């Protein structure tokens, strides 16, 4: 899958494209870990171009949020479509993540 990453000030911005499901979640996890290994601690994942997230994808978000929280970092999600928001709502994940409307507000929250 296509995953772009860039840096805005002190914040690492990850922009995955397409679906985060059983087939692609490993790749997505590798990317997050790779950026973490670079020493980044403040993360924004922009979900603007994501059409689908399965439970395998949710697991990666959860793993990243847990790791960053325990090391004093931050993990913010932004630009969720209604469909993606629904996945977070149904699984009960919405209250435990910081979710912002767009990248700029995400970077501020991170």
């Amino acid at each position: 899958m296509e995953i772009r990453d860039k840096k805005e000030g002190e914040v690492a911005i990850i922009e995955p494209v397409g679906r985060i499901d059983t087939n692609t979640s490993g790749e997505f996890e590798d990317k997050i870990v790779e950026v973490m290994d670079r020493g980044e601690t403040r993360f924004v994942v922009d979900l603007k171009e994501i059409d689908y997230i399965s439970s395998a994808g949710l697991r990666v978000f959860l793993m990243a949020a847990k790791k960053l929280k325990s090391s004093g970092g931050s993990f913010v999600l932004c630009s969720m479509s209604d469909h993606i928001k629904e996945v977070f709502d149904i699984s009960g994940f919405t209250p435990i993540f910081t979710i912002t409307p767009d990248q700029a507000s995400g970077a501020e929250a991170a």
Partner: protein
Amino acid sequence: MSENRQVRNLNALLDVAKALGGEMQLDNLLPIILQKTTEVMDADRSSLFIYDDTTNELWSKVAEGMGEKEIRFPVGIGIAGDVAKTLKTANIPDAYEDDRFNPAFDKKSNYRTKSVLCMPMINNDGSLVGVVQVLNKMDGGAFDDQDENLLEALSVQAAVAIQRAQLLEAFVEKQRIQESLKLAADIQMGMLPKNFPAFPERDDFDLFASIIPAKEVGGDFYDFFLIDEDHLCFVIGDVSGKGVPAALFMAVTKTHVAASTIPGVEPSDILFRANNELSKDNDQGMFCTIFYGILNTKTGEVHYSNGGHNPPYIVREDGTNEQVEGTMGIALGVMDEMDFGVNAITLKKGDSMYLYTDGVNEAMDIGGNEYSYERLEEFLTSTAGQKTTDIVAGSLSDIEVFVGNAEQSDDITVLMVKYTG
């Protein structure tokens, strides 16, 4: 070259070909190659280093005491490492004149290395298999061109034999993994209650459940049992991800949920306890969405808690249906000390609940269209009045028809319980 030497070398190569031809096990093959190489090359000793492309290292087994141990070093280090890196033969009359040589082994074993002939073993496809190294020509001199030609002929044979053994090992290993995965899937499926009718002596409710596992072992499960004479517990769950980790987490979840079930305790408290257990030491972020219901078989009242699972349907006797209201709750294993809510609904005689995993509504046809809630709701309306067995089986076959030739990527699980008063 003297005719004598030529004949001797040809015979030696034939010998080697014979010896290597029959051996398929890498562990047996390597000593044979070493022994034959030393013999044919008329050298004092030889070493073989196998290339590991996953770590870019060379490894070898060396005798130590009564046994042997594996040594490893990165490509680029020492004479053998340099040969692996440059893929160029090194023919060295005196090792101590060569700055790549590491005399540590000599010191340790009280040996004096002099002449060294070290050559890469290359495959037909041009990839590096390993490095062969021959030490101390018996006549005390340096290795010559003829020796190089002979070792090259030898190493080509050895490379083929080694690669053949490696391929075989990889194949056997893959088969072993597939077999153990299959076994894991069988064990997992064996954990789900499958004897139906499950409660032949009861006419106040009717229950049926079924699962179509995806090709790769997944993490769906269901469970049901009587908590006491009048209370039936029914559960459906879906673990994030696939493979053995998901299967293990599913087994642990099912066990904790059942162990937390105590007569008189609300579903919210049961999930609270199970969640605290599952959230301990869960660094991998595994989680399991779960719907937990308790049917009072005297009154038809159902108390339920939803831990992040797709909301089940209540299906009235006439086929009208709707998703049940959510409760506060999150998938199990995400975080400890999370609160769960509880709701109550009442099933009238003939009403039922249809529980499912997202493998149902997200089942995809070849065109990438989802089965969808709409189609599920239409199906439930159309099967009003049928037995749970028929509705569940019909539901799964309706999904199969919809999916057609598309590959099933997720477990598809359905549980239905009907209150018959």
